[in-house]
């Protein structure tokens, strides 16, 4: 066994001194033995992992940056500041911010309800919340069209409301439609992050606060929130990442380039145009999304790091 290990040590390019001179001693110490025995498996796994990561993630992303800058910084800036791009960025940000606000609020309510109360139908509700995870986003978008589109059953209701309010809000092929679709696909993120944390926490501390005379809102602010704040922030970040990148659901309800297109749709449109210029532009706009993604990734790391100490 030991001989074998020593040989392997040499093959793996360990220093000859360790292999020969050290003999028993060199491999006798605990650490050396451990890594010696398990040596090949972790190295293989790491190699596979790194390779996969490089091929599937890093190279394509580098490619995006490279392609976007291929025609020089000027054409990159032109692409990024093009009217359609700015409009798409605006729509993306509007949809993401509203989706975040709405989902944070409803996510909190849902997790509060599911973890602190007992009621009939609790499990059904818990499953319903996950629907956006299991349904293809395109179907979600189409469902909105079926409901709120020209032929949809809810359209007369929306028109009625518009009449009363004197507004002209349309829920499909418009920014509200994009917002709705984004909310739909990002709905479970916050509650799914919160539920395990709140479940683990139980409701003992809340009950203690009740017995000390605290009201609901005080209990939430002073007892519940400090425990869930990092999980909540983490959920919000995941939610944001998904909101920025959503394609399918938004694609179904958004058809007007420069008006209701989000960044992913704009990129798709540029790419599909097919000319060499527009493809470069598509990559340039993509780099915006990559930048957003990297920012989110860094935030996520910070939150995870902070959350560890506080959970």
């Amino acid at each position: 066994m030991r001989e074998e290990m020593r040989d392997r040590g040499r093959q793996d390019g360990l220093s000859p001194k360790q292999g020969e001179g050290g003999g028993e001693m060199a491999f006798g110490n605990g650490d050396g033995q451990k890594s010696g025995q398990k040596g090949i498996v972790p190295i293989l796994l790491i190699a596979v992992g790194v390779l996969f990561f490089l091929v599937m993630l890093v190279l394509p992303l580098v490619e995006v940056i490279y392609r976007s800058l291929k025609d020089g910084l000027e054409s990159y800036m032109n692409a990024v500041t093009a009217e359609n791009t700015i409009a798409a960025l605006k729509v993306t940000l509007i949809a993401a911010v509203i989706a975040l606000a709405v989902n944070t609020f409803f996510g909190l309510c849902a997790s509060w309800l599911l973890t602190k109360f007992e009621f009939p139908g609790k499990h059904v509700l818990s499953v319903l919340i996950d629907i956006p995870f299991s349904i293809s986003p395109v179907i979600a978008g189409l469902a909105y069209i079926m409901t709120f589109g020209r032929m949809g059953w809810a359209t007369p209701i929306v028109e009625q409301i518009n009449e009363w309010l004197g507004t002209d809000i349309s829920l499909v092929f418009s920014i509200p439609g994009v917002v709705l679709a984004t909310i739909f696909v990002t709905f479970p993120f916050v509650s799914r992050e919160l539920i395990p944390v709140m479940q683990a926490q139980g409701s003992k501390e809340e009950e203690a606060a009740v017995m000390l005379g605290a009201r609901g809102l005080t209990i939430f602010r002073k007892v519940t929130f400090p425990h869930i704040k990092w999980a909540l922030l983490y959920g919000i970040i995941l939610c944001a990442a998904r909101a920025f990148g959503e394609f399918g659901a938004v694609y179904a309800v958004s058809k007007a380039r420069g008006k209701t297109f989000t960044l992913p749709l704009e990129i798709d449109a540029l790419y599909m145009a097919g000319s060499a210029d527009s493809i470069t532009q598509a990559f340039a706009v993509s780099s915006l999304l990559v930048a957003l993604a990297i920012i989110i990734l860094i935030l996520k790391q910070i939150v995870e790091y902070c959350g560890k100490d506080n959970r």
Partner: protein
Amino acid sequence: MYVEMKGINKNFGSYEAAKDISFRVDQGHLAALLGPSGSGKTTILRMIAGLEQQDSGDVIVDGNVVNHIPAKERGIGFVFQNYALFRHMTVFENIAFGLRVQKKGKKEIRDRVMELVELVGLEGMHKRYPHQLSGGQRQRVAFARALAPKPQLLLLDEPFAAIDAKVRKELRVWLKEMIAQVGITSLFVTHDQEEAVAVADEIMIINEGRLEQMGKPVEIYKKPKTSFVAQFIGTSAVLDDFDGFKGFEEVPKGRKAIVRPEFVEAFKNDNEKVRSLIPAAEKGVITDISFRGSTLELTLEVNGISLTTNRSLERRHVEIGEEMCVLIYRAYILEEDDTTVYKNQMLKGVDVEAL
């Protein structure tokens, strides 16, 4: 302030947690709700607190029916099992919580918190977090936190369950003294009879949602009202067929009985001092001897039934297989839902206490 429950019923689905529970704990008394786990004792405590709503019946605090007063307005102190301290708050903030909720002044809060910190013996620890404290210290914080808003009634759910056996006895004494010092009416839940006997003025025995018996610890021990209580309190094994023992001829045949170790005396056949008692005694053979720290526990076979008794180490040496005289003073005879104490008729007129 006294607390009273009147005809309380509570079901969780098909599980009956409380069946027609009625009792009263007087001002300044310390009472224990004692019962096996799942007997419904914690539910009773939670109904008094308002954390659980009874299906029927009244909870009365100081003469007022509080059924519809929410928990946060009942002004009852509650010490939770495992304490449920606010983990992200210091000891000071934990104790101050109830006062901050009442919007008390800064100085008033500080004074009251420091007073309590001193009362529970945690001087200099008020800046620590719960995870930096030992189990016993956490219990003290939980106690101080519950007392901070000056409640008139204190409820404690298994207050010693999370503490290791060694410190537990110490804390029992401490808690009992503390409650006496504060003079607050208190009610605590436990599954440990030794704990209930050591701490409480009064014990309520709960079984399957029913109040089996309430009374002073000694009363319950001496006069168990139901077969459950007779079995639950003290060390006791149930004998299936208690029949044919000298002095117990009146006992109906085929009854189950409980004969506690302290109801049984065994002495050697040549014991001069008790010669007059020999006619009242049965013959028995020692089948087992085990050392119980300060006494020996003898198991004897008498009339085909195993009885146990404790024997002082100061007495003469005995061996397994030795024949002894076995005297039974008393036995609890269990009936359907009742217990009767039968005394050895042959000992009538004998001063047993003098033995």
